[in-house]
């Protein structure tokens, strides 16, 4: 068990060793985002911007125009929402090679409460032309997706939670931009998820199995570009349930619905935070409170299949 954000810090050091163009920018959250590990390893390539995310984002743009590969870190709330316009206009519009790694996203952020729980970032990030949006679910996918983010020239938004994560993938699993992973096969219903909701969906699938319901579980770790083929394949089971640590508007559920409605109509239920702000509590309590915990997923799937 290790937090994905700690894996982020470790992976930065690993990549920084061979790639001298990598520079890391943070806004006074280096301890929380774990960029402090990179700071210790390569102090000359770590830039603390202070609590000024908007400037940080556009400074990264300037660095990228000169050939550096800036990794910009903050909580998702401040990276995607506060500095969202800088990301759109100064980074995505000129398609600059800046990687934004946003931690403490969603309810997984926990007790800090609504002001710090970004539940709208995927909707915003997904809507920006030319942006790549990656949502790792465990330490293995975090490491792999960060390396993939560095492998191409262009903007990228990587969404990471706060809590420690068990490993859901084998160490040698291969990932690719625009692809997804089937974590469990099934024949009665397709459960599509990403990020911090994935472990809850896997637990729900196991419980459903004991109730005689065979659920397929897909980790849609590349939200943009989206693995449309996998969604079309998932629709063949007749029922899709999406689960995300995000508003039900604009994120994974919306992305799946856009594909299903236009290319492969089937029944869909979108589970997420339903037009509410978050609140304080630990992540598990919050997932239960907002109805995206294992128990609610199981009951929702049962109801969908009975309908």
């Amino acid at each position, binding site marked *: 068990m290790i937090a994905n954000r700690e894996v982020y810090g470790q992976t930065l050091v690993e990549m920084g060793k061979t790639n001298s163009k990598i520079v890391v920018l943070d806004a006074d959250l280096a301890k929380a985002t774990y960029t402090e590990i990179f700071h210790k390893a390569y102090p000359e390539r770590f830039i603390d911007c202070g609590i000024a995310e908007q400037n940080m984002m556009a*400074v990264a743009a300037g660095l990228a125009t000169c050939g550096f590969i800036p990794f910009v870190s903050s909580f998702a709330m401040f990276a995607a929402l506060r500095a969202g316009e800088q990301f759109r206009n100064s980074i995505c519009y000129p398609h600059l090679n800046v990687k934004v790694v946003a931690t403490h996203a969603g309810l997984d952020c926990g007790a800090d409460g609504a002001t710090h729980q970004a539940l709208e970032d995927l909707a915003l990030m997904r809507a920006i032309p030319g942006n790549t949006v990656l949502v790792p679910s465990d330490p293995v996918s975090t490491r792999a997706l960060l390396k993939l983010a560095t492998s191409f020239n262009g903007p990228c938004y990587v969404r990471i939670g706060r809590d420690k994560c068990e490993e859901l993938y084998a160490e040698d699993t291969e990932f690719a931009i625009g692809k997804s992973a089937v974590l469990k096969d099934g024949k009665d219903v397709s459960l599509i998820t990403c990020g911090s909701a994935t472990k809850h969906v896997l637990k729900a699938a196991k419980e459903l199995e004991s109730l005689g319901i065979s659920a397929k579980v897909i980790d849609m770790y590349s939200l943009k570009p989206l693995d449309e083929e996998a969604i079309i394949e998932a629709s063949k089971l007749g029922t899709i349930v999406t689960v995300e640590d995000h508003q039900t508007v604009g994120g994974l559920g919306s992305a799946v619905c856009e594909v299903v409605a236009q290319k492969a109509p089937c029944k869909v239920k979108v589970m997420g935070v339903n037009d509410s702000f978050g609140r304080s509590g630990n992540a598990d309590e919050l997932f239960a409170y907002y109805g995206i915990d294992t128990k609610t997923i199981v009951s929702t799937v049962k109801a969908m299949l009975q309908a």
Partner: protein
Amino acid sequence: MDVNKVKLVANEIRMHTIEMLFKAGSGHPGGSLSIADILAVLYVDKMKFDPKNPNLDDRDRFVLSKGHASAALYSTLALMGFFPVEKLDSFRKIDSFLQGHPDMKHTPGVDMTTGSLGQGISAACGMALAAKLSQRQNRVYAIIGDGELEEGEVWEALMFANQYKLSNLTVILDFNRLQIDGPTCDVMDIDNPAQRFQSFHLNTIEIDGHNLEAISQAIDAARSVKDKPTVIIAHTVKGKGVSFMENQVGWHGKAPNAEETQKALAELRAL
């Protein structure tokens, strides 16, 4: 510095700007005319660049943080040979590479995409830091507007520039005292910007932004400072060079008609 040459270029920047805006039917004359002299000094006498190789690593960078003055920048770049002067006629048109606001992906010589105020100066800080990290000797110049000072990001950027001792960064404030809604002192008073910049520990120089020698000397003075960035407060006249546009709020974002264009060009030709 060849003052006569710079003066000629500044005047050509102004004439092209007026013609472009007339042909486009929209654009921003006031804040373009106010920076023409600064652009002419920078590009004719100060900056290191090669129009044949606009992306050379060690070139000096220019960021027009007040991106709405794009007509003046495009005129300058065309006059310097980055692209043919005739292309200026396509400004703001549907098939043009000369967008309403500067677009680094499509216009040779544009070092940073700008237009949303406050962001260009931050990007310029990133470029200056990049030069330091790469141990390159190039310099970075950014022009910001006085209305733009109302964006909090400008002050974030200035704090950053001081913290990282970006002595290779020169920020030039186009202090023309007018913004869309009226005089800056009425909209959001930023009187005495020098005091504000000094309190941010920046090397601060105050000049007449239409005095070519003064602009040149200020830029040279900034170069000689080795431990901090410089802000040059250039006192300018919005609409400078066209009598009926000078100091008129209404000419911030409006194109001249045919008659006004002829009148403006006649005045500029006589300069």
